[in-house]
């Protein structure tokens, strides 16, 4: 299986762009959240400064933390990096794309979720297990909803490979797909839940009883925490790119066209900027849900995605 040099270049560019730009996206969203709330915003590069600061610190771990606890940040970071490498954000000509399709991507997110829940349970404090329980509660409904939303796209393009989906949707005639409307609403809800955004979870909270994502990383410090924060940014980047790939796949470079990346990179930047603003807007106008309303919220996403599949069966689109 020989990989063409253009494909290899595209893959490397994809990885580098994801790793470098993910904290930038997080910084952009934080800026807009502050501006929409009439506050002074931190610098756009603030997440980079935070990562640099954390890496320099001395790592501190609980006395009874096991090797699983210490290995998890690296595993989770690896999972998110692989996820960013599979989603066709810059180009669809990715050599890694045949290795994992949409279902494997969802499985990859599930793997990361299981590992971080186990690591949270490892130290054996009340907060860790609380976070693990809540994370698995959100995950058990979000994962099937995401899968069904991806299936709506798969049914239209007869493929579960994300590159093939983007190729077909971007380069065939523009068409309005009603089932994608359902998938869109479902995907938005799932992204909010999985990336720990208001209305499911407040990423800036400091009250332990309201935490979901923060409770999972409560015991981590220094380079471990830096890797987990970076992994969270990568997850948000990956989800945004999946959303763009499903709903706005225009401008992504195709096979054997490396110069097209010169167009697709700015296009990606523009799309992510608009998407980030939309996310900040949704976060500002929503209130955080009570924890037991979250399964209902996610059940809405799940049901909408299933109805999207049924609508596809009815209308053929």
């Amino acid at each position, binding site marked *: 299986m020989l990989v063409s040099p253009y494909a290899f270049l595209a893959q490397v560019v994809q990885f580098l762009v994801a790793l470098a730009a993910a904290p930038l996206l997080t910084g952009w969203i934080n800026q807009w959240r502050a501006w929409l709330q009439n506050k002074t915003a931190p610098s756009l590069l603030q997440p980079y400064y935070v990562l640099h600061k954390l890496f320099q610190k001395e790592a501190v771990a609980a006395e009874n933390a096991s090797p699983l606890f210490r290995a998890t940040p690296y595993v989770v970071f690896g999972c998110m990096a692989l996820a960013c*490498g599979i989603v066709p954000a810059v180009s669809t000509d990715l050599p890694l794309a045949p290795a994992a399709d949409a279902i494997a991507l969802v499985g990859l997110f599930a793997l990361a979720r299981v590992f971080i*829940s186990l690591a949270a349970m490892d130290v054996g*404090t009340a907060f860790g297990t609380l976070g693990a329980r809540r994370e698995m509660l959100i995950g058990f409904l979000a994962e099937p909803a995401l899968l069904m939303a991806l299936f709506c796209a798969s049914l239209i393009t007869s493929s579960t490979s994300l590159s093939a989906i983007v190729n077909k949707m971007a380069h065939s005639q523009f068409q309005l797909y009603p089932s994608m409307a359902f998938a869109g609403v479902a995907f938005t809800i799932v992204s909010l839940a999985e990336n720990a955004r208001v209305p499911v979870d407040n990423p800036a909270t400091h009250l332990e009883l309201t935490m979901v994502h923060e409770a999972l990383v409560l015991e981590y410090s220094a380079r471990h925490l830096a890797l987990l924060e970076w992994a969270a940014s990568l997850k948000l980047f990956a989800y945004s790119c999946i959303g763009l790939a499903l709903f706005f796949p225009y401008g992504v470079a195709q096979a054997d066209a490396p110069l097209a990346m010169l167009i697709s990179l700015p296009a990606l930047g523009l799309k992510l900027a608009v998407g980030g603003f939309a996310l900040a807007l949704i976060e500002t106008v929503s209130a955080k849900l009570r924890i037991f309303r979250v399964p209902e919220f996610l059940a809405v996403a799940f049901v909408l995605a299933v109805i999207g599949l049924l609508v596809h069966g009815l209308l053929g689109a």
Partner: protein
Amino acid sequence: MDRMLNLDTILTVITIWVGIGVIALVAPRRTRFIAHALFPASALLSLALGALAIHGLFAPPQATILGLGLPGLPFHWRIDSLSAFFLAVIGVASAGTSIFSAGYLRKGEGTAPGLQCLQYHVFLAAMALVVLADDAYSFMVAWETMALSSYFLVMANARVASIRSAGYLYLLLAHIGAIAVLLCFGVLQASTGDFTFANLRAQQLPPFWASIAFLLAVIGFGAKAGIVPLHVWLPEAHPAAPSPVSALMSGVMLKTAVYGLLRVAFDLLHIQIAWWGALLLGLGLLTAMFGVVFTTVQTDMKRLLAFSSIENLGLVFVGTGLALMFRTYGMQALSALALTATLFHVAAHALFKTLLFLATGSVLHATGERNLGKLGGLIRTMPWVAWLGLIGALAASGLPPLAGFVSEWLLLQTFLFTTHLPTSFLNMLVPVVAAAVALVAALSAYAMVKFFGVIFLGQPREEKLRHSRDASRCERIGLAWLAAGCVMLGLFPIHAIDGIDRVTRLLVGFGLGPTVHANGWLLLAPTSIQRASYSPVIFLLVLAASTAFTAIAARIVYHGRLRRVPAWDCGYPFQTARMQDTSEGFGQPIRQIFESFFRMHRDLPSPFDARPRYRVVVEDHFWYWIYQPVQALVERVARLAGRVQQGRISIYLLYSFLTLLMMLLLMGR
């Protein structure tokens, strides 16, 4: 000569198994000898059986007749691809269990070790003979032997009352199933009197009788597989048995039921009717949902795994139902895909469920506790069991790149292809079923995080847990063998699908082998790479590479210092091990969301109690809806019939006299 060699060798291996059991009878209390000589020998024989079975998978079918049995009713044995596949599963899973038992067997647990060894080997031999049987008679003999030997194994510790009642319930339901299977064979032979499978295959039953036979097969084999509502014996019998026996029952015995259903539905019945597949689909889905929801609320670690087995068998039935449905509509390729997913799941479940049960066996021996509320933190004192158990838990959750994910991937691919069924109702049904399967898979991950996290992670909830010892060497070998199986099956699914290809060709006339081969050994692509592909090896390599790269880079660019401190206590210094989540607490959100599935009884404390108590009892609705009314009815009928027995001799003489008069009257006509 090579043609007959395979089947004869297999039968010889099975006979040696029984021979080992008989040898153990010679000195029933010599635990050392049995544990260190007999069980490892048995494990080697299992490996040999597995190898022979894999060889038989690719060879043409062989048959033989043994003169044992009744005159005029000899035993027919035959090995074809379907038998060979299940035989391979039996061989590989039992190898791990036998070598584990070599380290697990201890004195003083009820039945003598020698007797247990005999029952164990008879059980193994009976399971192998079930899949090799070529006529209904030998099938039923092997089936009953399997049920009886496993009953005795479950009752190994018969002094405990709950174990006795669990065993009794198991035997009862096993026999109800056996009666249904017997009736099924009776219908299939259509009054020809010849019970060989070759004859049953040749019968052309009218659709009504074929449906009756199919329903009887579903009831009979479903009772053994633990399909709702005939599942009530599973959560009782599996925890009651010793752990290697639970592992074999869950990992292997349930699969013989799947074998039976596949044999009857696809091979022996010459037609298939559409609603059969829909029935299996519905039953499987109900079982899977029921099983997984109950798994998340259990507090006994072996009951948790038993309900997880119910869930996985439900998914297997869903796949079988899909394959049947597609075959009815003549969609052979889709039927083969669904059947491949099902058989892969059978193999994967055999491996990871056996691994998990054996891990709980080690934990039970080390700590003496089965209750999740009294375990915790065992990853520090029992690292071997914990890390190998982690592989099993990840495989059970269906996470890439392990074995459980591949079967889920294949099953979901099948759902995606199915938008062109003739009935629009089925077209509407399929996305809903796909969504339900995805939901079941996600919930099983929840349950496995609970299982692994509460037992092995966190702080020990009891003081004595700090003194637990890790598994012995033989136990470690057994666990490692099964864990390696999970990993290998997950990383190299192409080779397994090659073998399964033979089975699907036999059952539905189509196989995925050529298509899968065309895309190389690295990439799994059932139809085309454009359509869907998955490469577990590349997946694992890239994941491992990025993990390692990140670890090394962080250390080089910055530093790798680590300091140990007490855990974060939020300013409250009196934290105890009891303040982490209990198993009830971890499952409480699911219990609240799925409240209607349970029959729940809660005692809540009031603020005025001097000694507040909280008690929650979660039970099974089916017990109260079906079994108790049936039991009440049976008791009433028995009481009515009991009126005949008056206890007075003159009455009994009167009965004999009346019978004599009746016969003379009938003779006179």
